[in-house]
């Protein structure tokens, strides 16, 4: 799923049906609580992971390719590093990349979306620039993110910070498009004109009235972006442009261990893969509940 551009979130595409209010709200089931607990655990590990890791996550601590044992709960990888410790320590890096790139992509996306949406129908150079930018956002969506990722990461180089920047740049257009669509819907509303006529400055109108009414889809999409960001980091690792070893990053660990998994030594890729799946799935389940409960 590496190349996943998320389909634009449903709420923007489907105008809320008039009957939606009658839909019974789903109860918060056991699944939701499990997901919340798991996500809480992941976040906890992200904070304290490196502290509770039984071994040095970036050093060789045993013989290579040993299966899980009492000494090494997750076995060792092909260089003799402790898989369990690395998976724990990797949580911080992956969550950091995911959270910061998502925040950055969303913040940038909202600014760009607002700028484009408010100016698109203007005459003159500003309007043309906005229309151009708007088309550009569409164009960027036309390329699988994995291919863009390959190029952008090659440019930025590979460190945690550059990875965050690269992924934010790649995912920003998604958030920008969502915001822009919403701005276009809000823009014509009468209360904006009322505010303008009351003498409010245009910027104030945007910040006070347009912004709060147009960021919802982008905010609701945050968990999707979060998931994509983790999986994209992993996919880039798989294609050889991930974070350099011995950085404990799940994607690179999976990529590195995939060969071992194919010959039966499942653990060095299995543990980080499980961690990745749990994180993305629990985030996804929670958002789903959140979205269903709030939208409509």
């Amino acid at each position, binding site marked *: 799923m590496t190349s996943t551009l998320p389909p634009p979130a449903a709420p923007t595409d489907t105008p809320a049906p008039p009957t939606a209010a009658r839909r019974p709200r789903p109860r918060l089931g056991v699944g939701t609580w499990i997901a919340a607990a798991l996500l809480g655990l992941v976040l906890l590990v992200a904070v304290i992971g490196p502290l509770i890791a039984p071994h040095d996550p970036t*050093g060789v601590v045993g*013989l290579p390719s040993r299966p899980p044992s009492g000494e090494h709960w997750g076995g060792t990888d*092909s260089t003799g590093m402790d898989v369990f410790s690395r998976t724990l320590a990797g949580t911080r890096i992956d969550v950091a990349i995911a959270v910061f790139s998502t925040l950055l992509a969303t913040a940038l996306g909202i600014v760009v979306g607002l700028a484009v949406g408010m100016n698109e129908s203007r005459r003159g150079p500003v309007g043309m620039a906005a229309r151009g930018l708007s088309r550009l956002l569409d164009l960027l969506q036309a390329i699988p993110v994995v291919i863009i990722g390959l190029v952008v990461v090659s440019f930025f180089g590979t460190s945690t910070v550059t990875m965050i920047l690269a992924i934010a740049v790649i995912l920003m257009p998604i958030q920008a498009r969502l915001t822009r669509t919403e701005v276009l819907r809000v823009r014509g509303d009468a209360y904006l004109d009322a505010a303008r006529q009351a003498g409010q400055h245009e910027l104030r109108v945007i910040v006070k009235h347009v912004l709060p009414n147009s960021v919802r889809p982008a905010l609701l999409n945050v968990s999707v972006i979060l998931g994509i960001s983790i999986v994209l980091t992993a996919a880039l690792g798989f294609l050889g442009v991930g974070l350099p*070893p011995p950085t404990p990053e799940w994607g690179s660990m999976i990529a590195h261990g995939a060969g071992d998994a*194919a010959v039966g030594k499942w653990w060095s890729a299995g543990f980080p893969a499980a961690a990745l799946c749990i994180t993305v799935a629990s985030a996804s389940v929670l958002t789903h509940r959140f979205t269903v409960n709030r939208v409509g």
Partner: protein
Amino acid sequence: MPAPPRLRRLARAAVAVVALGLVATACADTGDSASGSGAARDTIVVVTGDQASNVVRDYGFTNGTDNQEVTNSIHAQLIRKPYIAEEGANVQVQDLYHFEPFLAQSYDVSPDGKVFTFHLRQGLKSQQGNELTADDVVWSFERKFSSKGGGMPGYYAPMLTDIDKQVVAVDKYTVTFTIDQPGYGFTLLGNLAENIGSIYDSTYLKQHATADDPYAIQWGVSSMMNGNSGFGPYMLQSVTPNQEIVMTANPNYVFGPLPIKTMIRRVVPDAATRANMLVRGDADVALDLRPSDQADLASNPDVFTPTASSNLYHSITLNTKQAPFDNRTVRQALAYAVPYDQIVKDVYHGRAYAYQHLLDDKQPYYDESTLPKYTYDPARAKALLAQAGITTPVSFTLTVSNASPSVQDSAVVLASAAKDAGFDVKINQVPAAQLFSDGLAGRLQANMGTGSAVTMSPPYELQLVTQPGGGSNLSFWSGPDYDAFAQVMKQGLASTDAIGPEAGPLWSKAEGMLADSAANIFVARVMSPYSLRADVHGYAQRTDRRIDYAAITAGGEQNS
């Protein structure tokens, strides 16, 4: 709303039918296709990680296993190195110091050692059916030297600089190579025996030459299938981009007919899958396996893994023009911070052996005593650093290619071990091409990788990594130490025989100076990453570690 049972049954049935249908088609094709039992086969399946992208060596530098194997198979040379037994090896290897006739029937050397006369086999036909003549040899060298991309003048410097004068067709079947100094002779022969010495069918290629493209190089690269222009054992039959190359035996091959008529070369990018396919009998030969998989396969009676010495060195190159490695003491300290044995044992799983220098130790008059003894000795490394007044930890970035897992693993092991020796190693992985161009631009502090010399000639090997402006020189070693080294090299080149009693000790002396500079740290020699089905016989290891498919048979009894 409650589900109407009929619809639900229908949906379930549909899922079941689809699944069943898919599984049924799949089973149609799972039988093993490569290894049968007993009977000899004339088709082999080779699985490779990449695919040859260009079979015209003169167009550009072509890296990758498959490229070299395919071009090796298409082409033949005037002479070749004979296969001999090696102590401790389970396959034959090439004798680096003697040459036997190949396309030439014989060759002789003038008394002053400057003129090499090759007598060609008569009536020998190319893949296109044109007879081999002295003109083919001359034209081949004109072509090699006409193209910038192939870098051939670099390989042949300083032996050949002026083709028109130095390579001459005496008559239809005789050609002479003339050199300035007899000391160049051995290196010249070594080059002529490798794929950079390939002889082309000039009659065929000239038909496709144009004024803009007098040597048909552009024509050659315009389609892979234009590559059948040699005298080698195999020729291209079909090419499916990034998937498959099929080669068939050349009916006109000098040592034909060949037991293997068809060679199917499939691209399987994942190394572990290649190993699995060998185990399952879906492949006869698997290229570029991981050492750990080869170690696992050792206990499998159906699989044969060649064990022999190799010329592939695993080394660390330090940039002597940049801190911290502009200081020789720091370089030497790092040489004591490398866990040599651990890399051999844990990364290469015994598919490498400790070998901490460049030259071949079986070379005549070789003397190992000139070498400093580098071992993993963190205390000594720290002492050296302290002695030079360097504050530890010394941090630096070690760049590796993202395409070689063993080197990446070695980097991790090194970083972990060097911590105790006062070094803080950061690893950076980049694509191979970028590593190469950044290295040449002097932008890397240190890099690690594997390499080998095309020609195993002592002066050639030593110059490869030290020649100022040379493409494999990423350490930029210079200064008084280098000047002294260069002086010794000059003496050696002036001697009459590069592998004679006069030159031999000089090469050892120069190698000792190189090792003392620690601009290059040689970690180990890496063995062939190939494994074969046990019933594929005749594997002999070429110097370039590629398979000589002309020597292979398949089926019949198992290898022991």
